[in-house]
């Protein structure tokens, strides 16, 4: 591997032009050839057994399906079924299209959504929230309660996914498959090619860019397009890319189920407490005491920056945990 790394970019390009064997491909082949030496025979045996079991299961299902398909269905009822399907579909499409024709034209004057509420947001938004980006000012100040609800929905969605799919010491008692999966290493990459060089090189370049862009979008949520939700989603996507390319061990070093719980509960609580404070003071016409700062500065617009960071944490962790749990049943 070390001698292959000496090739410069120009050399690699020349070889690619001459259609010699690609160096990346060579590395990939070398890595694939090297891989079996690391795998212990026990795991290989387990894999073989697992594949056999699965094949048997699939055959049983296929037999049942065949038996089901061989049941005689009268020709007329089948025809009727198709007719009714098409009719219902066409009726739904027609209804929806008819409704669309009755919608007001985009930005028409008699559009009922153009009323005093958006006018107030546009005219006084900057003054009252201090956020240059009116959208963020709206969702994290005027309608912050909705955003708290959205974050809680995300959190509870992850909790339910964990409840359904997580495999821990408890699940070993009920499922032999879960016990086997947990006791064996590398099971999360059971069906995947290992050491995919193209994916790893791409991830190496894209991962830092994605995370940096995400952090930028979160911190500048009140100044430029974006905000906690989009920035968090970008960070989460970057983490997922890294995990797909290099496996879970890097991220597990600093991010486990416990970290997830702590970060998300802390973020949700901070959000709830700070918003409770501002609702209390705002509803009673008290001075909130939080300076709005000069519009356009990074430290401005009061609580919005804090709320953005909270939402960013929640969304990034949620995306990563969803992926990890879906993929191997553990965070």
């Amino acid at each position, binding site marked *: 591997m070390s001698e292959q790394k000496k090739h410069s970019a120009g050399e690699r390009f020349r070889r690619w032009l001459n259609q010699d064997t690609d160096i990346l491909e060579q590395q990939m082949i070398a890595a694939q050839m090297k891989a079996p030496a690391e795998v212990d025979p026990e795991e290989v045996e387990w894999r073989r057994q697992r594949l056999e079991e*699965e094949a048997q299961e699939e055959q049983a299902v296929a037999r049942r399906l065949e038996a089901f398909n061989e049941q005689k269905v009268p020709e007329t009822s089948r025809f009727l079924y198709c007719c009714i399907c098409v009719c219902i579909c066409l009726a739904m499409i027609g209804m929806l299209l008819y409704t669309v024709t009755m919608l007001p034209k985009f930005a028409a004057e008699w559009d009922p959504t153009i009323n005093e509420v958006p006018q107030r947001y546009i005219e006084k938004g900057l003054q009252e929230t201090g956020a240059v*980006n009116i*959208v*963020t000012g709206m969702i994290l100040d005027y309608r912050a309660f909705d955003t708290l609800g959205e974050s809680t929905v995300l959190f509870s969605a992850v909790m339910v996914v964990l409840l359904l799919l997580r495999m821990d010491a408890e699940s070993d008692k009920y499922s032999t498959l879960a016990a086997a999966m947990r006791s064996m290493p590398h099971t999360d990459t059971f*069906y995947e090619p290992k050491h995919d060089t193209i994916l790893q090189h791409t991830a190496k370049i894209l991962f830092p860019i994605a995370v940096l862009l995400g952090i930028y*979008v979160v911190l500048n949520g009140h100044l430029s*397009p*974006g*905000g906690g*939700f*989009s920035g968090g*989603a*970008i960070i*989460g*996507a970057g983490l*997922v890319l890294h995990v797909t390319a290099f496996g879970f061990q890097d991220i597990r070093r600093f991010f486990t189920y416990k970290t997830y719980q702590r970060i998300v509960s802390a973020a949700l609580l901070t959000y709830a407490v700070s918003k409770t404070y501002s609702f209390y003071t705002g509803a009673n016409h008290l001075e909130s005491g939080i300076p709005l700062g000069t519009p356009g500065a990074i430290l401005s617009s009061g609580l919005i920056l804090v709320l953005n960071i909270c939402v960013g944490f929640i969304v990034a962790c949620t*995306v990563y945990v*969803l*992926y990890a749990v*879906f*993929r191997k049943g553990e965070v």
Partner: protein
Amino acid sequence: MTGIIQLMMLFLIGCAIAVSLTRDLLTSIIIYMCFSMVMCLVWITLESPDLAITEAAVGTAITSLLYFLTLKKIHAIDARNEMRKKDTATKEKDGGAAR
């Protein structure tokens, strides 16, 4: 500019129809990804960059990733599956010829 927007709208409609008509689940997810990408451009032309960023991250990356993972869980994307599909295809051909 309006020409480009109309072209994108037509592409969106084409994608939506194609998603429902493809038999292969993997293909339909990739078409769905294309739909999200073009939708992202449409949001930009409608002057809502916030939505465009969210659409790019959530619609294109995360939703499709979760779909891919689900397909993997139910073994819909699997080398053995491809082989089996080929088998059934040849069998159907043979059966059709015999009939």
